[in-house]
């Protein structure tokens, strides 16, 4: 190479090096920002969900511990009246039935808000109880199979329980399924959850993009904060299968 070519060559090398450093720095900054962004989003969702759970637990406890005993007292006091008239007796029986219905409904709401079994006996027992309840009140046939132990910390267990509630609620509301099966397997360092229904299915990507309901978004957020993964297989008229992998 001649002198001029050598100079141009060196100038180009130097310029490329500088541009290379700037581009590398740019990519590092973009990756770092992305990490910070994800962290912030996770923190926000976590705080939001923690607040929501706390509030649910408080409302559930208020229902269970304050209103239910109060209604039971009202019922007892009504029954103290010495009534002889047949019409009054019938009226009292009707009032008793209504109070009984209100207490029952309040227990259901309180159970949905924060099942005591979940905190006391863990996720598997709580889901068993939930499925039992669903089988009682719905025409759909629910089946539940699970391994004996499920080593999940309390906050993760609450999130998994909420995910299950949301998935089952979606299936009941939209799928027109006649059978829904829930399967939980405790694997090494993770639990696998599979929820299948034989309903009409849906287009997952389309539904998620539409952002019409908060259901799928809420499931995604809860899966994200547990550090897990979610897979959805759904085709029109072929049912829906949700698979969750939650690290223990």
């Amino acid at each position, binding site marked *: 190479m001649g002198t001029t070519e050598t100079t141009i060559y060196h100038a180009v090398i130097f*310029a490329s090096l500088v541009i290379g450093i700037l581009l590398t720095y740019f990519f590092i900054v973009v990756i770092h920002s992305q990490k910070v962004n994800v962290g912030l989003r996770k923190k926000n969702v976590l705080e939001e969900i923690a607040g929501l759970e706390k509030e649910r637990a408080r409302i559930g406890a208020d229902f269970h511990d304050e209103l239910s005993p109060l209604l039971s007292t009202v019922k007892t006091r009504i029954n103290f009246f010495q009534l002889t008239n047949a019409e009054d007796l019938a009226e009292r029986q009707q009032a008793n039935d209504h109070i009984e219905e209100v207490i029952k409904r309040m227990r259901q709401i309180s159970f949905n808000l924060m099942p005591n079994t979940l905190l006391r006996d863990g996720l598997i027992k709580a889901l068993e109880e939930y499925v039992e309840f669903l089988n009682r009140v719905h025409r759909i046939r629910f089946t539940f199979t699970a391994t004996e132990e499920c080593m999940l910390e309390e906050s993760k267990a609450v999130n998994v329980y909420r995910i299950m509630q949301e998935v089952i609620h979606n299936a009941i509301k939209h799928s027109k399924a006649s059978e829904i099966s829930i399967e939980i397997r405790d694997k090494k360092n993770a639990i696998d959850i599979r929820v299948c229904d034989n309903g009409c299915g849906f287009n997952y990507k389309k539904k998620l993009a539409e952002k019409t309901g908060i259901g799928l978004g809420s499931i995604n957020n809860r899966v994200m904060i547990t550090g897990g993964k979610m897979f959805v297989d759904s085709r029109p008229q072929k049912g829906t299968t949700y698979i969750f992998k939650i690290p223990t």
Partner: protein
Amino acid sequence: MFLKVIFSAFSIFIAGIIGLIRFRKINKMYWPMIFVVWLACINEIISFCLFKNNLSTAINNNIYVLMEAMVLLFLFRNFGIFNRRKWLFWTVCGGLAALWLWENFIGGKIWCISSWFRIVSSFIIVLTSIDAISKLMVFGSQEFLIIRGRSLFANAAFLICIGTIIFFTFKLLVEIFWFYGLNGSEIFRVKLYDILTYINLLVNLIYALAVLWAPPKQRYTMLSFSPHW
């Protein structure tokens, strides 16, 4: 060609006039940007007068590049780029000032163009601009006092960063070529300056938009946000 260069150089006056009108309304955080624009306006006038009298513009340009780099670094400090590393800001400013002094008074002469300073300062400004854009993407309106819901192209901080990245990256390349003595070829020099003219015009218009959309002063500050309480 001459008219094109003059038009491009004096396009900074659009931003300068907008800055003059809006100065009292703009949040103090963005004042360094106005100072940079005014410095550029003054430098263009001085350069034009010197050029008309067939005198070298190297001295005023050497002083201008030092002031421009310092004020831009102050702007980026206001954006919170050096929040976690306050020492870095003073180290960079001190380092650049030392380099400028060495290049203009010890290693070289002030009436010659100081290439090293231009290369290093341009490089640092591009790096800090990249940092500022990333911060803007993460923390958005909170730290940059940008009005929520506005498009990114009506975002003063974003426009400033884009402007500085475009201008100083090209300037960096040109300075590297000059450093290697490639300005010996007149055709090459004219062609590069031709590109620089268009880039300068584009960046001056971006700066004008940035000054126009710079956020206004906060009317009041909530107690919990004030660091002095």
